[in-house]
């Protein structure tokens, strides 16, 4: 796609995004940003590493893909393995324990993103100095809020520990079920803080909403563009983060696909390979590679579902969509608001489950039915739709694994966001301003991308921006100290 008439602006790596990213801006002769390319180093070796392993290892093995949302991989693989062993209906205790684990994961991940990574931008403004625009700044100026963020994350982790045995990389889900129920002690321990969690989630929705409405003019167009949206929904159209069928709508809410079983994903989704990126570009086949890309994650899920089956989150969803008169919202920065609605939904779900005696049941594993050699499972991870597809041979060894992670689905949307932000900012002077850097970071962060899906450390990474002309000569460089 690079033509002789384009110049490149390189920004690397992004701060406060899990993993490493590097952005190249391709300028045309008139210094207009023609295209943005977010280079993501994805850990693809994993799919080969899985080959030959016994399939029952998968849920524990694949969660090592990610230190941030291991539970999503754990549960998605477990659902796929249920299919392999022919466990059609899980005992209620197993199904609900897994859901509890999943909502705990959703809750802690959303809290982490909102309070640690996003709130500095929202509270201090995108142009606030970097020294202030971080979680330390939030702790200094909004100590109560910072404490809430920490406690919400911790609560989610405790839910994970009670269901998976450990806060990170536990074992809970096994083929056809779960390896433990929730003891009365574990339940009561979690119930102690439950009301507070719902209350704080409510408050977080308010913060995100107020922020969006107060800054509507600036926020509405910021890195925004019309797009398709995709997620799982329940049979009745309700939001379902753990299970369901695929639905995709276009930018005005018209249905593109609906109730497509995960098993049929290859009929509706294809992945495009582009020479400059290791990461693929998924698209809806019926729309084609040019226009068929879609967004996933909190914004997409609010846009695709017909309703949310918990009262407070449902009220918040209606409130959210009233801004766009019931049509999908295509505002990139509205991801934050949508994310907090989901956090509230997760809190409500956790509360319901903690009061459900099924969680103390003793029937933990389904009977295995007809064995399958291939299966596909999908769930909604915090960052969006996650797909695991496996093939297994007659000796129980994995022969093929294909994983489509949410950050891959949001690949094209993130590029669009960066392109939009950059072209709004760079017009004329071939230089990178601190403001542009900030804005690009803020735009990408809205998606909460997990860029490597491998190992990564939380925290600040140095930022370096390089401006290169079409001959490859360095024109400008802007770097942040480590």
């Amino acid at each position, binding site marked *: 796609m690079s033509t002789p008439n384009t110049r490149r602006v390189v920004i690397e790596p992004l701060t406060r995004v899990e993993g490493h990213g590097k952005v190249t801006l391709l300028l045309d002769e008139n210094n207009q940003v023609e295209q943005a390319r977010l280079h993501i180093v994805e850990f693809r070796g994993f799919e080969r590493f899985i080959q*030959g*392993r*016994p399939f*029952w*290892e998968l*849920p*524990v*093995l694949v969660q*090592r893909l990610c230190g941030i949302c291991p539970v999503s991989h754990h549960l998605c693989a477990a659902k796929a393995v249920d299919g392999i*062993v022919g466990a059609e209906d899980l005992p209620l205790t197993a199904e609900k324990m897994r859901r509890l684990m999943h909502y705990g994961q959703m809750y802690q991940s959303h809290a982490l993103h909102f309070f640690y990574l996003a709130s500095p931008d929202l509270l201090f403004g995108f142009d606030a100095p970097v020294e202030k625009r971080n979680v330390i700044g939030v702790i200094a100026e909004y100590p109560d809020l910072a404490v809430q963020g920490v406690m919400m994350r911790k609560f989610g982790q405790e839910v994970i520990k009670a269901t*998976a*045995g*450990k806060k990170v*990389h*536990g*074992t*809970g889900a*096994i*083929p056809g079920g779960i*390896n*433990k129920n929730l003891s009365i002690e574990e339940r009561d321990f979690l119930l102690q803080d439950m009301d507070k969690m719902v209350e704080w989630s409510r408050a977080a929705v308010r913060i995100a909403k107020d922020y969006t409405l107060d800054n509507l003019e600036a926020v509405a167009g910021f890195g925004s563009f019309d797009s398709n949206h995709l997620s799982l929904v329940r049979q009745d159209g309700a939001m379902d983060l753990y299970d369901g069928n695929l639905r995709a709508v276009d930018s005005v809410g018209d249905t593109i696909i609906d109730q497509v079983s995960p098993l049929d994903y290859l009929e509706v989704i294809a992945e495009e390979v582009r020479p400059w990126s290791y990461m693929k570009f998924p698209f809806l086949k019926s729309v084609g590679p040019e226009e068929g890309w879609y967004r996933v994650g909190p914004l997409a899920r609010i846009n695709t579902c017909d309703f949310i089956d918990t009262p407070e989150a449902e009220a918040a969803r209606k409130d959210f969509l009233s801004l766009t008169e019931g049509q999908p919202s295509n505002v990139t920065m509205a991801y934050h608001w949508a994310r907090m609605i989901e956090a509230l939904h997760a809190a409500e779900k956790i509360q319901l489950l903690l009061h459900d005696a099924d969680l103390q049941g003793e029937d933990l594993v389904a009977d295995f039915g007809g064995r399958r050699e291939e299966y596909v499972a999908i769930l909604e991870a915090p960052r969006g739709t996650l797909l695991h597809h496996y093939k297994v041979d007659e*000796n*129980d*060894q994995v022969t093929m694994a294909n994983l489509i992670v949410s950050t891959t689905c949001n690949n094209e949307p993130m590029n669009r966001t960066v392109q939009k932000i950059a072209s709004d900012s760079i017009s004329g002077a071939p230089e990178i301003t601190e403001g542009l850097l900030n804005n690009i970071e803020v735009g990408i962060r809205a998606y909460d991308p997990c860029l490597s899906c491998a190992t990564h450390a939380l925290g600040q990474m140095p930022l370096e921006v390089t401006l290169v002309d079409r001959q490859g000569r360095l024109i400008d460089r802007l770097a942040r100290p480590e």
Partner: protein
Amino acid sequence: MSDRISLTIDGRQIEAEPGQTILEAAEEAGVYIPRLCWMKGLSAFGSCRVCTVRVNGRPQSACTQPAAPGMVVENDTQELRELRRSLIDMLFIEGNHFCMFCEKSGDCELQALAYRLGITAPQYPFMFPQRELDATHPEIFVDRNRCILCGRCVRASQELDGKHVFGFVGRGAGKKVAVNAESGLGGTDAAGDDEAVAACPTGSLLKKRVGFAVPVGQRRFDHQPIGSEIEQAQSEE
């Protein structure tokens, strides 16, 4: 009773039956001597050297050395702890032991010994050998990545199961546990309930589809280090 043997271990006087090894006598007295290739009910093999003690100053494997009157045995010394650490360390680096997704984790004697001896990270470089996984049997599988060549399966198959499913082939770095059928484990008369399977101290020889059925917190070594049961048995008396 009169023919009981008296010896000391780390300065403590203990008694042994004639014919007992140092390891057995120590165990009866509530003293844990670390071991890997030794297993109660099987003949001693003396290959792993983890049970090395000093007997009257000379290094000996406690699992093969008979107790004798007046022996002065050193077991829990800095020097021997370090030696054992090195041995365990080498077992880790010469195989592919990824505890983080091994279903035997929390229940594995190799891992438990590493914890007991305070190994947090290996001091030698990993060798990442190429090893095979044989899953041709419908009920069990052997993942040689995790095999430490202790020979417990070999002996258990012969001595307890009355079969000859397992044996060693090759030498040195090429040594591996083999099965007595060309087509692999599936061609042997091994069965899921064989003592040989239960005898494996690591996640090398396992029953299929058991996986992570035991939750974290309920596994054998989740709450106490390996050997504690031996030490506690004595202190409770």
